Each structure stands twice: as structure tokens, then as C-alpha cells.
């Protein structure tokens, strides 16, 4: 197993090229900082050579599955190819060395890219204003719901205390609503994977601030009655929030603005191919229609003549405010912009088409081979759900076992156990950048795994076998908390 960097450490070792050569007179330099404010204890960081560092982290990287190395059909995450050319331009000196608080007149290059991305996002969603500062999807959700809150408050309507959320929604939806001070009311899904209209009508009223929806939904199917839902909510005086997690399925084919949504967040790290980075950074810009424009977060870029400038609280007195120290994840914004310019209108248009083609192809092949689709009569959007509830009964294996065995076959597992509504589910999203051979290989692997499940089910229960570790004890992890390395003998923090 890979040793910790601390275990490679030896007192006195240094990466000498990174340490200044001139001997610094510490006493002299620190003379004007009072003793009581200075650090007196050593900093416990690893003492290693540069080669040790390079080897250690390079070897660590080799213990990861990634888009660059494996098919990664993680539903709802849109693991498409992250173009290297896009990464390269975002790392150009002029961008990388630019301080965010530089004078506006010296920031026009970046601001031009940001402004144009704002315009493009407005165009693909059918909305009137855009703000790029939310630093992740969840922050975009927070912004959108906060804008709805501001809208009702400014109208003097203080009865709107509830946000409606489908029971199939992503966890960030209710969490964001609560963070904005709302109560959450869940609406049931019907057997076809759509929001239950009767349940919706029963739960809408003067207390409804709005509804948060994803379309296509987290169940992988298009919300067929979306226009009716929009009408019901708007009639009751509420607003519609669109979670853009699944935008890859419809970009260029439908605009959420046309469906009736009032505010939308997009996930640049999904639809716009910016790198996931092992958990971040993301970027969750919000776009809004006319009535929610005044509440968009700041800062945003405005264009006056041929000059760009930052809009602040002074320009936008009703803004929900600032969400970050600077203007958000600038480097991610640049990458998304470069991606869109690279693809252009025809390339962007093809994204949803081929994402949907790949998903429907996989669905058709798996159905033909005996797998159970959660919604067999529906088209797949850019993703679909397979349920293993029958196999769980007959073969005593579950979605987790299949997912772990897929890792041995060199595929990252699909999303498991989400949405919560479908038992033993796998949410599969191939994305448009995968070729037919990869999809066929994935199907072949699943078939093989099912054969293994019939002949030797214990094999699945013990998977994976070919990775740096076997299945990990998560119960022990939570019980005997070890979050910070304490040295060789004493590695526990003690039980809670």
C-alpha cells in the first residue's frame, strides 16, 4: 500500500530548489513582531526531497479511476471528456497571473470571456440575465432559491414559507431550500417517473414560494407535463427553479426558459466539460428571467460600448449579495467559455443528441439482455435507471455488489442508490464523448457479472479484487475516527 507522505519524511530533508539560497536572519526579520504573536512550536509538515514528492503523488494518482483512464458512466454527473485544449488556454500566463482586484481597464481580457459566457448561457436557457459567481451547483441552487425569497419579500408577501421538491430530487435541493430559511414539502412521483400532478395540486397554495425541479428528472426521464406544472405553480403565485444537473440531455433541443422556469442554475463541471478534479472545483452560474433579474448575485460583468465593467451592490441594490470573496471560479468560467467557443452552435447542438443516442442505445441493449429498466416504456434522456431488485431477490446480490465487480472489469460504477425512489438502482449516464465499442464492452461486462452472480454469487460479494484495496470498513471509519495522522503508534482520535 502507498505509505503516507509523513512516513517518507526524514528530519532535515528539504526540496532545496524551493528554499531561498540566501541565509535569512530570522531574528532581524522578526524583530518588529512581538514574541507573543510568533509561532514557537515547529510546523509538522513532511520533510522530503523533491523526487520523493513527485514519486509519492504520481503513484497516488495511479490509484484513481478517472475519465482520462476509464469509462465513467456516473449518472447525473456527466463525466464527459475534459478537453485538454481548453485546460491549456485557461492556464495562459495572462489569466493565471492576473490578480482579481486589478483595475478594470487591465482586466478586459478576462471580463470579455466572462461577459460572452453570460450571453451564451442566457441564450441556451432562454433567460434574460446571468451571474457566474456561484462556485458550485449547490451554491447556484442557494442563489436561485435566495432570489425567489427576495422576490416574495420585496412584494411584501410574507406567507410564502414553503419550497416544493419532488421526492426524487437531489439532496442539495432540500438542503439549499432550508439554508434559505424555507420549509420543504415533498411531492410524490407517479409510476411513469413524472411529478404526480394531483399530489402537486393538493400541496400548492398561498404558502408556496416555489418549486425546485430538474428536467429531465433525476429518474432519467423528461417531465412530460412540465408546462402544466409551471401553470399550476405560477397560478398559485409561486416561481419555478430549474436544477441544471441534467442539462446535457436537452441543451440546444429545449430551453428551460420556454418550459416556464424563472431561475436556473447550470453546472459548468457537468454540461460544459470543466474538470471534476476529484470533487471540485465546480461552478454553478445562475440565469434568470425578467422578474428575478434585480436579485441576481454580484459581481457580474456589464458591457458599456466596447468596455466591460463589474456590476456591484451600487448598481444592483436588490441583489441577494455576494457569495464569494472575488468573482467565483474564474478559471472554470474561462474553461467553459473556451469549450463553448470550440464547439460552436453545431457542436453544442450535437451534445444532447449524442448523449441521448448513447443512453438509449445502452438502454436498448441492456433491456434486450434481460436487465430491468425502471421506466421501460419511457425514452432514456441522457441517462437511465436499471433496477436490480429482481436479481436481489433471486440471486441475493445487490446494486453495490455489481458496482464493485464492475470496478474489476475496469469501469467506474454508475451512480448507485440514487434516486432513492428506485430500489437497488444503477443510474447510468454514458455521455456523448464515448464510442460504440466502449458502450458494447460495458454491456458485455455487465452480462458477465450477471453470469458470475448465477454461478458464484460470493465472487460479487467480495469484489473488488484487482484494486489497491479490497472493500473498506466504513463502519469502523465512523466509529474509530482517524482523520488526522498522529504518528506510527497512535493513529486514533478515539471513539466519539
Amino acid at each position: 500500500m502507498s505509505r503516507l507522505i509523513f512516513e517518507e519524511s526524514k528530519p532535515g530533508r528539504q526540496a532545496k530548489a524551493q528554499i531561498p539560497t540566501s541565509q535569512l536572519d530570522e531574528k532581524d526579520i522578526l524583530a518588529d513582531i512581538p514574541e507573543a504573536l510568533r509561532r514557537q512550536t515547529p510546523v509538522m509538515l513532511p520533510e522530503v526531497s523533491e523526487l520523493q514528492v513527485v514519486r509519492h503523488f504520481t503513484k497516488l494518482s495511479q490509484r484513481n479511476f478517472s475519465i482520462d483512464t476509464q469509462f465513467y458512466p456516473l449518472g447525473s454527473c456527466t463525466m464527459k471528456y475534459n478537453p485538454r485544449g481548453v485546460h491549456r488556454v485557461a492556464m495562459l500566463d495572462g489569466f493565471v497571473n492576473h490578480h482579481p482586484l486589478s483595475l478594470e481597464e487591465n482586466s478586459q481580457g478576462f471580463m470579455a470571456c466572462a461577459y460572452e459566457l453570460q450571453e451564451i448561457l442566457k441564450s441556451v436557457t432562454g433567460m434574460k440575465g446571468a451571474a457566474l459567481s456561484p462556485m458550485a451547483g449547490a451554491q447556484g441552487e442557494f442563489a436561485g432559491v435566495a432570489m425567489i425569497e427576495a422576490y416574495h419579500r420585496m412584494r411584501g408577501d410574507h406567507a410564502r414559507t414553503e419550497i416544493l421538491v419532488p421526492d426524487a430530487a437531489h439532496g442539495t435541493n432540500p438542503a439549499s431550500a432550508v439554508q434559505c430559511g424555507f420549509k420543504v414539502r415533498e411531492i410524490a412521483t407517479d409510476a411513469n417517473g413524472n411529478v404526480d400532478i394531483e399530489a402537486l395540486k393538493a400541496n400548492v397554495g398561498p404558502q408556496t414560494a416555489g418549486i425546485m425541479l430538474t428536467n429531465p428528472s433525476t429518474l432519467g426521464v423528461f417531465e412530460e407535463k412540465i408546462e402544466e406544472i409551471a401553470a399550476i405553480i405560477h397560478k398559485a403565485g409561486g416561481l419555478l427553479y430549474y436544477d441544471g444537473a441534467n442539462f446535457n440531455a436537452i441543451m440546444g433541443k429545449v430551453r428551460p426558459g420556454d418550459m416556464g422556469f424563472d431561475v436556473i442554475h447550470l453546472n459548468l463541471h457537468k454540461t460544459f466539460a470543466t474538470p471534476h478534479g476529484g470533487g471540485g472545483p465546480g461552478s454553478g452560474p445562475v440565469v434568470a428571467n425578467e422578474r428575478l433579474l434585480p436579485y441576481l448575485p454580484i459581481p457580474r460583468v456589464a458591457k458599456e460600448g466596447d468596455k466591460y465593467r463589474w456590476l456591484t451592490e451600487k448598481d444592483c441594490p436588490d441583489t441577494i449579495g455576494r457569495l464569494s470573496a472575488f468573482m467565483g471560479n474564474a478559471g472554470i468560467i474561462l474553461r467553459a467559455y473556451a469549450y463553448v467557443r470550440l464547439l460552436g452552435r453545431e457542436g453544442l447542438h450535437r451534445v444532447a443528441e449524442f448523449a441521448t443516442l448513447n443512453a438509449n442505445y445502452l438502454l436498448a441493449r441492456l433491456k434486450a439482455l434481460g436487465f430491468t429498466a425502471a421506466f421501460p416504456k419511457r425514452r432514456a434522456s441522457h441517462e437511465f435507471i436499471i433496477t436490480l431488485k429482481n436479481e436481489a431477490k433471486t440471486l441475493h446480490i445487490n446494486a453495490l455488489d455489481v458496482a464493485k465487480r464492475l470496478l474489476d472489469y475496469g469501469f467506474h460504477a454508475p451512480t448507485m442508490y440514487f434516486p432513492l425512489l428506485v430500489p437497488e438502482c444503477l443510474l447510468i449516464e454514458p455521455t456523448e464523448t464515448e464510442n460504440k465499442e466502449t458502450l458494447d464492452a460495458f454491456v458485455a461486462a455487465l452480462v458477465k457479472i450477471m453470469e458470475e452472480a448465477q454461478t458464484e454469487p460470493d465472487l460479487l460479494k467480495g469484489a473488488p479484487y484487482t484494486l489497491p484495496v479490497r472493500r473498506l470498513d466504513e463502519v469502523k471509519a465512523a466509529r474509530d475516527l482517524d482523520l488526522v495522522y498522529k504518528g506510527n503508534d497512535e493513529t486514533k482520535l478515539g471513539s466519539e
Partner: protein
Amino acid sequence: MPFIPHTENDIKEMLQTIGVSRIEDLFDEIPKNLRLSQLRDIGPGMTEMELNKLMQQHAKQDGNMLCFIGAGAYEHHIPAAVWDITSRGEFMTCYTPYQAEASQGTLQLIYEFQTMMANLLDMEIANASLYDGASALGEAILMAARLYPYKKGQPTYKVLMPRTLHPNYRDAAFSIAKHQHITFIDVPYVESTGKINSESLQKLIDDHDDIIALVIPQPNYFGVLDDIDALTQLARDNHLLSIGVVNPLACALLKPPGQWGGEGVDIVCGEGQPLGIPLAAGGPYFGFMCCKKKHLRQMPGRVVGRTIDMNGKPGFVLTLQAREQHIRRAKATSNICTNQGLLVTAATIYMSLLGPAGLRQTALLCHQRTRELCDALTRIPGVNVVFNAPYFHEIVFRLPKSPNEILQALAKNNIQGGVALTDPNLKDCLLMCATETKTSQDIKTLAVHLREILAGEKLVCHA
């Protein structure tokens, strides 16, 4: 079409398997009246070569200027190995480590990061990062509200917010926390020192009975070093939670927040950008958060734990996920779903490369440079240091001309001179920073130009 690998043959075969004749048929569940035929207002695509040319033009505009701006984002030397390794596809294009066995690289790295941050700040627990320093403060305040013993009938929580804190941090924290019945009470600073006015602070505490926490920045927005031991003690004496906001690089030289007031603060947060992250026009950066062990259950964000696999071999997993949105949904500690994984990777490699000696040397050099900056500029007639107090990293100078005029004139000479301040008492001031990347020659250049500008040399305003 970029990145779509399908041949005409592939498409034909796939459509046949599905049982439709055209790709368009796959969208037949979408109401016809909603369907678009094409994207408007978007230009044609381009090749990578054309993209390069376009982006190089934009990048050149923002140029490579000599930068003396700090104010929350700092220019440091970043060893080449940091981003070479961080940009490896295995780090850049993997996802959140939900399949732990297939993500041991990222998970072990985060465990090492948590350890390094806890050590650097001398705190018991660190999380796997939040979005940035400002939003981390917002989350810290929400955490403080959850931690504070509930007082019956108390409708609001008040948090003491010094005017010495970065104004953007205050604004972002307010946007995030205001929906949870949390209000901020401004704490004034002493005009001569730029430190928190402790007398006013005590009076505010005595006058309000629903205060839950005190925010303590170190260094503060002005670069001034405050009396953190006394402030932390004051918070403890008054049964308030203490929230430190620190610069992690500075902690190599300054007393870390885990030692303030003897027992340390309850929660620390701040901006991790100084640790190997380039300025990059404002992001992505990463926020860090550490806390005392006893507060762990209310800490937001991801946390990685070490455990064993079924063969007893050590391995790493995300743990305590029951706090998070994907499990608790509406009852989660936060809606946060991301950590800044890529930036954490860079920071961990940076801290490993620099080690304790390198980090300390870098911080020492920064202080030396800022002292040199101070000496050089105060020799110019009319330029004075505003705050009579120890400082680190940056200084507020009072100048005899409008700060914006000066900044614009400096920019004509390819220098970003600093940041003008919004505080009404500091309207004629600039906040300036010199890190280890500034040479003596750079500082001389700045001084020469500033002298010229103040002496009334032509201030040419190009239209």
C-alpha cells in the same frame, strides 16, 4: 464535431438497435411546441488552433503586470511540480471519491491534506475544504449557530464582526447566513492601530444578550496583527464561540489559531490560495475549515477517514457522511456537495515540497519584502503608514493624492499598485502587499514611479 466519436455507420447501427430511424425520434417525449430547431446567438465552432489564437489575444490584454495587490489573494512562487502533477488526468478528471476502492489516490491525498492543515493551524480536525475563504466564513457562522446551546425564546443569533475583516468576507458571510436569523454586530477598530477596539467589544458584549460568536482575523484586512490571545480569552470568558480567520502561509511564522488564548479557537477558516494556487483572475481557490474535536459533528464539508479493508490493509474512505446533504437532505449541516478537490491536490503537493523549512522561509521573505516596501515608500514625501502596529504581508499607506488616480498612473507604467479602501476613514489610502516574488529592484521601480506621480509629473489620462 469536437469530441463526438460516432461514425455514420455507428449511428446507423445504434439507431437500428434502439428501433428508431432518426436521432430526432429520441426526443419525441418532449412537447413539440417546446422543441428548438437550432441555437441562436451562438457563433460557429473553431479548431483548437483558432481557439488558442482567440484566447491568447484575451490573455495578453490582462498582461503580466508587476503586482503589489494582496487583499485576500497573494502571489507566491509555485514550484513547477505542483501543477504538473495536479494536472495529471488521474487527479483532474476523476470525480468525488464515492467508490472508495477506485479512488484511494484522492482519498489518501485528502487525508494527508487534513493532517497538514491540522498541523499547520494546530487544530484537532480539518475538513476536505470548502469553496473559498469568504464562503467558509459563512459556513463557520452557520456552524456556530448550530453549536450554540439554544436559549429558550431567543429569536436571533448575533455574531460580532470586526471592521478589520475583509469587507468581501463580511458580505459573502452575510449573504449565506442571513436566512438563519443571524445578524452581525459591527465591532469598531482603534484608528491609530487598526486593531479591534477591545473596550467597545466588551461593551457590545455587555449590551447584547444573544451574541454567540466573535470573528477574529489574523492578519486582518489591513495586514495588522491583532492581540489574538486577549481576544480569544475574552470570547471564552463571555461564553462565546471564537472563529479565527487566518492566512495559512502566515501560520508558519505566527502563532497558530489552535494556540490562541492558550486553548485555541473553536473554529478556524480562511483562504487556502496562498498554498500553491495561482491568482488566476480570482479563482478557483479553496476555503479551509478546522475545528475542535468536540465540534466535529456540526462541521460542514467532506471528511476523509483512515480505516482498513476486508484483509486488514489500511485504506481511506469518506466518513461521517450522515452530516451531508446526500444523506440528511433537508437536515444536513450544509447544502455543500463539493470540495475544491483539485486545489486541495495542488496545496498538498505544495506543502510537501516546501515542507516546514520552506514555508517558514517563504513567510520570512514575505515579511522582509513588505518591510522593504514600507521603508522605500515612507521615504517619499507625503506617504505615511496609517497603523502603528505589527503587521504581516501588507500595509495601509496614506497618500497625498487620490488613490484611484495613483493606481491608474501606476498602471500606465505596468504596475498594479494595490487596492483602494472603502472604509470612510481610509478614503485616501492604499493597501499594498509585497510577497517573496518581489525583488528589491521591483520595489525600487514602484517607489520611483510613485515618487514621480506624487511630485506632479504628468498624469496622462489616456481616453
